[in-house]
C-alpha cells in the first residue's frame, strides 16, 4: 500500500512541479515564436463560411471589363490588361522588368512600351492569341525560364484582344512617335 505523502515529500517535489510548469510555458512560447517567425500559427485561420462568400474577394474575371462598354478601346484594353494577368509579367505600366531566370532577354520580361514600333495591330493580335510557349534560353543547358506567355485565344474574346491591342499601342510615348 502506498504511503501518504508527507509535507516534506511534497516540498521535495515542488521544484519538479515548478520546473515542469515553467518549462511547458517556455516551450509554448518557443512554439509561438517559431510559428510567428515562419509567418503565422495554424490555429489563427479558418475557412471561409460558404461558397457564396468567396467570389466577393476574388478579382473580377476578365470579361468584367466589357461591363464598361462606354469607355473607349484604350481604357477597356487597360482594364483587360490589368484584370487578365498581363500585368503580372509585363508590369502595371507595361515596362516589363519582371525577372524570368535564364530568359535570353536579360533574364527579364521585355517592355511592351514600344510594341507599336515592331508590330502591326494584326501581328500583335496574332502574338497575343498564340502566346509564346518556348522562351529562348540564355544558357541552353539551363532550366527553361519559368514565365512563358500563355495562349490567350480561349481566354479573351475577339473584342478584348482588339481593346488590348489598342491599349498596347497607346503605351508608345508621344515623344518617341515624333522622333520617328
Amino acid at each position, binding site marked *: 500500500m502506498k504511503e501518504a505523502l508527507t509535507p516534506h515529500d511534497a516540498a521535495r517535489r515542488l521544484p*519538479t512541479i515548478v*520546473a*515542469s510548469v515553467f*518549462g*511547458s510555458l517556455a*516551450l*509554448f512560447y518557443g*512554439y509561438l515564436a517559431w510559428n510567428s517567425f*515562419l*509567418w*503565422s*500559427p*495554424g*490555429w*489563427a*485561420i*479558418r*475557412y*471561409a463560411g460558404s*461558397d457564396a*462568400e*468567396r*467570389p*466577393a*474577394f*476574388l*478579382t*473580377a*474575371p*476578365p470579361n468584367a471589363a466589357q461591363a464598361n462598354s462606354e469607355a473607349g478601346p484604350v481604357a477597356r484594353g487597360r482594364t483587360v490588361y*490589368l*484584370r487578365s*494577368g498581363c*500585368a*503580372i*509579367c509585363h*508590369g*502595371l505600366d507595361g515596362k516589363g*522588368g*519582371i*525577372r*524570368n531566370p535564364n530568359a535570353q532577354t536579360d533574364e527579364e520580361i521585355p517592355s511592351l512600351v514600344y510594341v507599336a514600333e515592331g508590330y502591326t495591330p494584326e501581328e500583335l493580335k496574332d502574338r497575343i492569341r498564340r502566346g509564346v510557349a518556348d522562351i529562348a534560353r540564355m544558357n541552353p543547358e539551363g*532550366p*527553361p*525560364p*519559368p*514565365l*512563358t506567355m*500563355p495562349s490567350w485565344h480561349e*481566354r479573351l474574346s475577339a473584342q478584348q484582344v482588339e481593346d488590348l491591342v489598342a491599349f498596347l499601342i497607346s503605351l508608345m510615348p508621344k515623344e518617341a512617335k515624333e522622333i520617328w
Partner: protein
Amino acid sequence: MSAKRSAQIAGTMAMALAVVVFLPRLFATQQPVAFNHKKHVDLKMPCASCHSGATGDERAGIPSSAICSLCHAREKETPESPAELLAFLEAGHEIPWVQVYRVPDYVNFSHRRHTLLGGLECATCHGDIAESTRPIARQDMQVKMARCLDCHLERKVTTDCMACHR
C-alpha cells in the same frame, strides 16, 4: 537529482511539448494551397498585378485560379507547382482561399484611397508579407480602429467619424 525525478521531468516536458505542438493542429485549418509570396515578389511581380484592385478599387482582391493557371501547369517544368494547386486547376475549381483581412461592415474602406491617393505602400498595413514563405494565416498588423486613428493623426488626414464609418 535522482534518475527517477529526471525521468519524471523529461516525461512531463515531452508531454507538454506534444500537447503544445499537436493540440492546436487538431483545431487548425490551413490555407488550401501553400502559396509563397516571397517566390513571386522575388521575381519583381508587383502586388497589384495579382491583387488587381489594390490601387484602383475598394477591394484589393485575391486572384482567381485562372490567373494562377497562366503560369502553373503540370506539363511545365518551371515554375514549380504545388500538387494541391494543380488539383484545383485541373478540376477547374476556384481555390477556396481564406480571407484573412476584413474590415467590419460598418466601415468604409477603400484600397484605392489609401494606395493610389494616399500613397501608402502595401507593407504599411500588410507588414512584411513580401518576405513570407507560407500562406497568409493571420493579419500581420491587426486591423483595429486605434491603429487607423494613429496613422490618420500622424499623417494629418481626416478623423471625422463619417469619413470611415457608414
